[in-house]
């Protein structure tokens, strides 16, 4: 009786056996492939440019991906839940403006940051309400709020940049703990938190179940709507955190800040192997995806590739990442 679990199936399982061999994924091989890509890029750029493989430049790479990294960690969960959030760049801009406005009007920076994060959560709640309450496709919702929140950023700032001079922001941008900038630690902390949540909490598993099969999840008694809503709220909150970090790094809050970041974030998540149809994806691999993007951008800059071409490369990478994902799954747009 105790060995029932490992007993070879006595019943004929011909069709299902062949099906499982065909559809079986090899996570290790796939992970390895992703790491190899990263290593190949590092080696390639090291050969191509003497400045690439230096401590200060590698720190640069990390610092430059911190902002999309913070967003990408949560975007992984959003995609796993079967949704999408294209409004993260705009939310970052609104949060940046809110934070800077409060700081220059005399608020304590920490309090200003907190209000900025709450603003992000509120923006995420707007997305979540439209998706869950109004039952609109998340792609459509966040294309709408992509424009809506961007507009709010311009209205709040009256279209002007706001300089950020507070010591908190400077600390965020320039201070280092254990060789790494605070921003980088923050990004790693967000990744660690999301990784822990996805793996070790019931809420995390609910996200996977809801994305994998919402109907089954609902019948199993999982709070499908609440899960979707909260994931959108969390995405808005980390987008706001990214906005605060962006303020600190650039020294000013700009209403047009973080334009187009949603595409980079999405690219990083998809490179990491998260499925566009929900239910599958790992935060750790998103981090590798983020690093790949960071290395490519940094390497191209070192090689003086004009930024227009970098934009072209970014777009190509997004399509390539999705093509790889679907080839692996044997699915596609039909």
């Amino acid at each position, binding site marked *: 009786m105790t060995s029932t679990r490992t007993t070879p199936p006595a019943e004929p399982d011909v069709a299902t056996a062949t*099906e499982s061999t065909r559809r079986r994924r090899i996570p290790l091989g796939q992970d390895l492939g992703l790491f190899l890509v990263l290593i190949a890029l590092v080696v390639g750029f090291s050969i191509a440019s003497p400045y690439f493989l230096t401590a200060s430049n590698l720190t640069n790479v990390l610092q430059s991906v911190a902002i999309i990294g913070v967003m990408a960690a949560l975007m992984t969960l959003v995609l796993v839940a079967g949704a999408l959030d294209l409004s993260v760049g705009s939310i970052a801009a609104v949060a940046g403006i809110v934070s800077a406005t409060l700081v220059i009007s005399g608020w304590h920076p920490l309090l200003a940051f907190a209000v900025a994060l709450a603003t992000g959560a509120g923006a995420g709640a707007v997305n979540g309400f439209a998706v869950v309450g109004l039952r609109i496709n998340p792609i459509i919702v966040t294309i709408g709020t992509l424009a809506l929140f961007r507009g709010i950023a311009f209205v709040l700032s009256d279209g002007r940049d706001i300089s950020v001079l507070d010591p908190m922001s400077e600390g965020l941008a320039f201070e280092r703990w254990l060789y790494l900038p605070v921003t980088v630690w923050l990004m790693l902390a967000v990744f660690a938190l999301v990784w822990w949540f996805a793996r070790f909490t019931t809420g995390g598993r609910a996200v996977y179940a809801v994305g994998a099969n919402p109907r089954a999840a609902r019948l199993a008694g999982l709070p499908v709507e609440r899960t979707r809503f909260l994931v959108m709220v969390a995405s808005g909150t980390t987008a706001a955190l990214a906005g605060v970090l962006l303020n600190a790094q650039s020294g000013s809050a700009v209403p047009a800040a973080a334009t187009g970041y949603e595409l980079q974030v999405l690219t990083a998540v998809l490179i990491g192997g998260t499925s566009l149809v929900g*239910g599958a994806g790992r935060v750790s691999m998103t981090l590798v995806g983020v690093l790949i993007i960071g290395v490519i951008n940094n390497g191209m800059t070192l090689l003086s590739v004009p930024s227009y071409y970098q934009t072209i490369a970014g777009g190509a990478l997004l399509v390539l990442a999705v093509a790889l994902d679907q080839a692996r799954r044997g699915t596609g747009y039909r």
Partner: protein
Amino acid sequence: MSAALETRGLTKSFGGVRAVRGVDFRLESGQVHALLGENGAGKSTFVGMLSGILSPDSGEIVIGGEAATLTSPVDAQRRGLRTVHQELELAGPLTVAENILLGRQPARFAHVDQRAVRTRAIAVLDRLGANIDPAARVETLSVADQQVVEIARAIAAEPRILFLDEPTAALAPPEIERLMAVLAALKSQGVAILYISHRLDEVLRVADHITVLRDGSVTFSEPNAGLSRETIVTAMLGAELAAGTAREPVTLGETIVEIEGLTIGTQVDDVGFTASRGEVVGFFGLAGGGQMEIAQALFGIRPAQTRSARVLGLERLPNHAREAIARGMAYVPADRKREGLALGLSIADNLLMTVLPRLATWGIRSASREAKRVDELVERFRIKASSSKAPASSLSGGNQQKIVLGSRTATGTTDVLILCEPTRGVDVGAKAEIYRLLRGLTAQGATCLLFSSDGDEVAAVCDRAYVVRRGRIASSHPAEELSASFLTSRAL
């Protein structure tokens, strides 16, 4: 004279289960040939092969005297064969006329002649005697009208062979009459018609020849001359079917489900029933008879009205699945791939889906408690898998169904278990185990409500059963009376 369509030794297996076994079949031009069989007898597989959706493992299909290897539905259509499917396959946003002539629009240099589309659509609709506006968008029509459009589309192609799969399921009597007239007209034009239906009266009226499939083989094939209902029912179900196997006497506990005047839209009308602890109560009906809607209403996932309802101390039906589960109900859906499992997730993830929060502390999972519960469930439900980390998609149907059952009852506090078609697509061994598990649950004082269109299943496990016919409870029977043939004859 050669037949319009003929098969010789047609065979098809799915994963070791032979769904269709060496079927010889002959369909003549100008003939209405009815194909009958219980759910799961192999009708759909057989028709799937004839219409190019499935490819046979062995045997041959001969169309118009020529051996044909059908590679796709389009290939079958090219050979003059059309199928009207049970599920409507129409383009909702397009107009009736566009749907009828879809893919065959009269056009000159890619410019579609809309007026010709309209005239030709009207001509086809007139042949059907249907009063449907050709300019209306299909999605605005009633299901019955959509069914007529679907049939019109098939007829517009002037097929030599026409398959009709349950064409009258959605139609009202006058529309059925019109369809019968159209069939007679098509017949006189030499069209060969394969007619699949559950409605015996209708089949006996319209068919020239009747063939019955049972367990994938032809058990009966004769011209329809003075055939009786009984002859056909016996051919469908087998005469020797035992009228319920011996079962241990059940000890009934308190009545925990009492429903009166349950009405669900137009599908279910004024239905009442009760169920007590310790019994398995069956709800038998043909596919589409309304029994699945009753199951869903009971679990709170389909809006319904009741005159009075009492379920586990609740004085009404639950409002949603979460409330039902919190009250001690569990639901095993009919479609395990779409509603039961997250196929991409692991066996363990699926098994723990319902119970996970109860094994955690403040939302933080406990690996040891989870592993222990998974091992318990795997053993209790005898799930055969290489590892509980394997994806649910890698298992056979029977083992998948055991996971659904295990997942929904994993809390150990299930008082009312609602099961829909619990052994559909499940092999015999796993069927027996699933029945054994139901018995185990009722022995612990749970109530099982089994909603099924499989008469053998209801006869094998239920202590008593209601027959649901067209949205109403037609009759109620004790265990001694239950047999598949009896139930089917009551539900037809």
